[in-house]
């Protein structure tokens, strides 16, 4: 089982609580971006293109806690930028663990070995290591050679020290399905708890606009990658999201499922699109025209998007929203030994 029972129980009871109270729109994972600075400049990333004075800014630990409390989501993902470059990252993690939030600290792992002694293993803390495929593909995606080896070394150390570790893989066009299958074997052999997968999104600000997947291509690629799935592969994703990626089920986007907070405020409408900011979570939820986003909306920016921050919350909602959804999830899970 890729996700611990306690975490599944927390998420299930949270979602069911929202349903019971009749709350239609609720956050599942807060995307907390405490900085935009990074020690890499990947061609597919649209998050770091800012003037120097903006890149030097950080959310304080107190600002992070305020956003987490305001949002109320049971899980907090800390992307960036590179969170391990944040001067208060240890305090931020400690504060979130104290709040019993399940944290996914997303890192390229360049600083992980150096910083590990400052953290304590906890069921609430997972290092989600950015790994975009085997050595050659990964180093190519991050535009720097040698990063794969550094990350593998850091994963081994973190796993050995008892930390929860997952990998986080964004797949772009041109990847070889067999290479990715072999990569899954390699990652599981490192002892990671599970793997996260998502197709890339064509950020307007990302330098690379040609290597992102379109919907049908995405489905075909994931069908090829996930065919005859090996029992040893563990995914840190909802089984229904994996079905969605392969085109076996169709979902609408849940853009409010992974709200994003950073130095500018609460980002409208989602983690990927930047159409403005509001200063409170309440404003984000109540004032955003949600009907303008997702496949059905006809919004060009959403047309080909199948990224986990929009569709994983839908899959989770589907799982706990009806007996049919729950049974479908259970079947998908059992079929692949998840």
């Amino acid at each position: 089982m890729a996700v611990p029972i306690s975490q599944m129980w927390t998420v299930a009871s949270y979602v069911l609580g929202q349903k019971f109270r009749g709350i239609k729109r609720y956050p599942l994972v807060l995307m907390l971006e405490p900085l935009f600075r990074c020690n890499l400049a990947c061609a597919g990333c649209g998050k770091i293109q800012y003037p120097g004075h903006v890149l030097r800014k950080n959310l304080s630990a107190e600002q992070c806690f305020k956003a987490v409390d305001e949002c109320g989501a049971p899980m907090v993902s800390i992307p960036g930028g590179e969170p391990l470059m944040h001067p208060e990252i240890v305090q931020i993690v400690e504060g979130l663990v104290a709040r019993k939030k399940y944290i996914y600290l997303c890192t390229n792992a360049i600083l992980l070995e150096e910083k590990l002694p400052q953290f304590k293993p906890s069921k609430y803390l997972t290092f989600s290591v950015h790994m975009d495929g085997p050595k050659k593909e990964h180093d190519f995606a991050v535009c720097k050679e040698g990063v794969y080896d550094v990350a593998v070394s850091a994963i081994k150390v973190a796993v050995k020290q008892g930390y929860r570790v997952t990998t986080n893989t964004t797949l772009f066009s041109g990847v070889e399905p067999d290479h990715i299958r072999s990569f899954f074997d390699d990652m599981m052999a490192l002892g990671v708890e599970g793997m996260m997968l998502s197709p890339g999104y064509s950020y307007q600000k990302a330098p690379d606009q040609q290597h992102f997947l379109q919907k049908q291509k995405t489905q075909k690629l994931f069908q090829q990658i996930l065919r005859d799935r090996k029992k040893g592969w563990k995914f840190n994703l909802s089984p229904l999201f994996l079905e969605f990626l392969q085109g076996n089920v169709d979902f609408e986007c849940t853009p409010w499922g992974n709200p994003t907070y950073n130095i500018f405020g609460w980002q409208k409408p989602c983690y990927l699109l930047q159409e403005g900011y509001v200063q409170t979570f309440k404003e984000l939820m109540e004032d955003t025209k949600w009907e303008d986003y997702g496949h059905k909306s006809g919004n060009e920016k959403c047309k080909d998007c199948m990224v986990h921050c929009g569709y994983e919350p839908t899959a989770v909602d589907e799982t706990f929203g009806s007996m049919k959804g729950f049974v479908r999830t259970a079947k998908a899970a059992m079929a692949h030994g998840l």
Partner: protein
Amino acid sequence: MSAAENKSLEKWIPTVATKEELYDALDKAFDYRGDITITLKDGSTLVGYVFNRTSNVPEPYIDMYPADKDEKTKVFYKDIAGLAFTGFDTAAGKSWAVWLAKYKAKEQQS
């Protein structure tokens, strides 16, 4: 707007004589990944990153991070006399094609 299109905005000084021109220029400033210099009607200037624009309210405004301060600043449209795209466009000039060419050249050498 694509990164390529953005590139052309660097050093651009839009005409903002009409309301439409001002609104359009501020939309582009919001989309731009470099600093903007705003000239206010009192003659003072502000240099910084425009991260938000709220144009559908009675008194439209932009939010920016001035380059020399750590606090967000709100500037009302009605107070703006002009603007210029003075900062380096951080989203331009790092194309995938350039990286790919470098990578291939390196592969051929090794």
